[in-house]
């Protein structure tokens, strides 16, 4: 049984009469100890999916799903108080900008200990010891003195380590990292990635790594899930995806990685932006931007078949399979 099973997740914003689906019929699975990457442009619904999983979508946003099962609990059927016993303990999340994601008025120590107190019931010396242990686990030097520091006194990389310490405090079974390195310097990025990978292996956590940059997770993830406009458009093992992308969108993303465009005069870029509230196409959501689009594409929406959502999925040579 998988650790997390999502079936037909839908997250809508806007009025009931004119809803805007930020996530539209999403299916997703992850196993214990698995590392999965979710990739897509801004606005593709990656973060919203994870926020829905964490129960962070507020009214007027609406979350529905056939199944949202984590570790045997259907999260949507739980009472809020019961759900909070899982969220922050067994599932936890780290965010893009660590400095703004930490409360400026409290010390780092307070913010780490808070989860430990609420979820594990730790007190006194045991609490102190565990907090220190966590800071050492995320490789923060002079950990003892850092416990009393405020977020604004630490560097960006250091704050992200603190965020990770907060997230892994209760030994979660699933950790979600939402673009954890986007706000950091390149050298620090690699360090944080290595740290996350090490922690994931050591603790046998499920790790969902959200990013808009395929290159970042190419080396780490076993499986990649590509999202576009609130839908999964392709799902495949990393090696297959890089060798032979089957969805035109995946192909475009790969072409946008500088290493893949060697020799080309210009870096390839997908024209246009993700459709918004008012310009959502009737057919395939990518059809207005797709170089292979046919008449059918703009009329009907394709389903996710065999890990790809395209009528004319690409073959191994990167060519469209239409007539």
């Amino acid at each position, binding site marked *: 049984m998988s650790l997390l099973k999502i079936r037909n997740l839908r997250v809508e914003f806007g009025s009931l009469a004119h809803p805007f689906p930020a996530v539209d019929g999403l299916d997703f699975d992850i196993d214990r100890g698995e590392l999965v990457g979710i990739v897509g442009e801004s606005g593709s619904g990656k973060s919203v999916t994870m926020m829905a999983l964490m129960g962070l979508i507020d009214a007027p946003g609406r979350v529905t799903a056939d199944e949202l099962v984590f570790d045997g609990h259907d999260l949507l059927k739980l009472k809020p108080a019961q759900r909070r016993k899982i969220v922050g303990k067994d599932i936890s999340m780290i965010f893009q900008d660590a400095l703004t994601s930490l409360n400026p008025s409290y010390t780092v120590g307070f913010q780490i200990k808070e989860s430990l107190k609420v979820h594990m019931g730790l007190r006194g010396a045991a609490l102190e010891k565990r907090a220190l242990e966590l800071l050492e686990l995320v490789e923060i030097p002079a950990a003892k003195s850092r416990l009393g520091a405020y977020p604004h006194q630490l560097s960006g990389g250091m704050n992200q380590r603190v965020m990770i310490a907060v997230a892994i405090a209760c030994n979660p079974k699933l950790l979600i990292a939402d673009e954890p390195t986007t706000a950091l310097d390149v050298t620090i990025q690699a360090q944080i990635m290595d740290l996350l990978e090490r922690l994931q292996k050591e603790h046998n956590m499920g790790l969902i790594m959200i990013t808009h940059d395929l290159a970042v997770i190419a080396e780490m993830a076993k499986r990649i899930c590509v999202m576009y406009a609130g839908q999964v458009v392709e799902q495949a093992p990393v090696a297959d995806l890089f060798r032979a992308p089957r969805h035109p969108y995946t192909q475009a993303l790969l*072409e946008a990685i500088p290493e893949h465009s060697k020799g*080309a005069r210009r870096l*390839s870029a997908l*024209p246009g932006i993700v459709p918004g509230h008012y310009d959502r196409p009737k057919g395939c959501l990518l059809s207005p*931007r*797709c*170089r292979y689009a046919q008449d059918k594409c703009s009329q009907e929406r394709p389903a996710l078949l065999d890990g790809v959502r395209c009528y004319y999925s690409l073959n191994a040579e990167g060519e469209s399979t239409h007539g």
Partner: protein
Amino acid sequence: MTTQVQIADVVPSYPSPLKEFWQSFSHNKGAVVALFIFLCVIFCGVFAGWIAPHDPVEQYRDHMLTPPSWAEGGMSTFLLGTDELGRDILSRLIHGARISLFIAFMSVLMSLIPGMVLGLLAAFFPKGAGTVIMRVMDVMLALPGILLAICIITILGPGLINTMIAIAIGTLPSYTRLTRAAAMAEINKEYVTASRVAGAGALRLMFLTVLPNCMAPIIVNATLGFSSAILETAALGFLGLGVQPPTPEWGTMLSAARDYIERAPWVVTMPGVTILVTVLSINLMGDGLRDALDPKLKRAA
């Protein structure tokens, strides 16, 4: 491999700034109603001589303390009743609008313009002039508005012009500080540097390059300044330090009416309601203005 895709041609049609402003302003229903009320008050003030049914200082000795027309003993000629000297309250209120608006307008102007100049100077020359200006403003800010006005009235004596001066001096620091803060934020931006490199002089930089980009907060502050000037004029009038009777000023009217609280409540009620409605409508308008002018807040709501 890199076949270009034609994106559907969209000709973007951007609304003119004025239209865009009106669109976001009219989104706020309260602000539109407030604007309408305020325009009515302005209309009354400007055309007071034609609208007012009576001469505001004419004393109808036979009809002293006549209640409003709908109350028992009221007369239809005196719609809102008469005061302790038999003067028509409605006419006095209408003429009062002219005085209050005039004082408020002039005092805003008299503090806005020097305030902007001083603020720009303080921003452009932070070492010399700036320090001196801001220290002086700190001193002025240490005296709460009405106390500073009292202080100035003590020196100059009461009266219409002096009320204007007192209020203008009292609000000067807020414009100076605001302009300085806004200008300081703009001064390091690339477009200013570009203009400087292109050889623009200090005056041109100050007034043509930087100032227009600082206007949004200043305009909002000016609306608030306008409403507080009306309140302060009335407060000074009430204390007997402002416009002197028999000039029909709202606060001065209230001051005289205090003794008739029991016998003639309308003499107290009417001027106060007028002040409240006027000030409220300006403040609501100011709120609408702020939301419409401040791009940061624009989409947040």
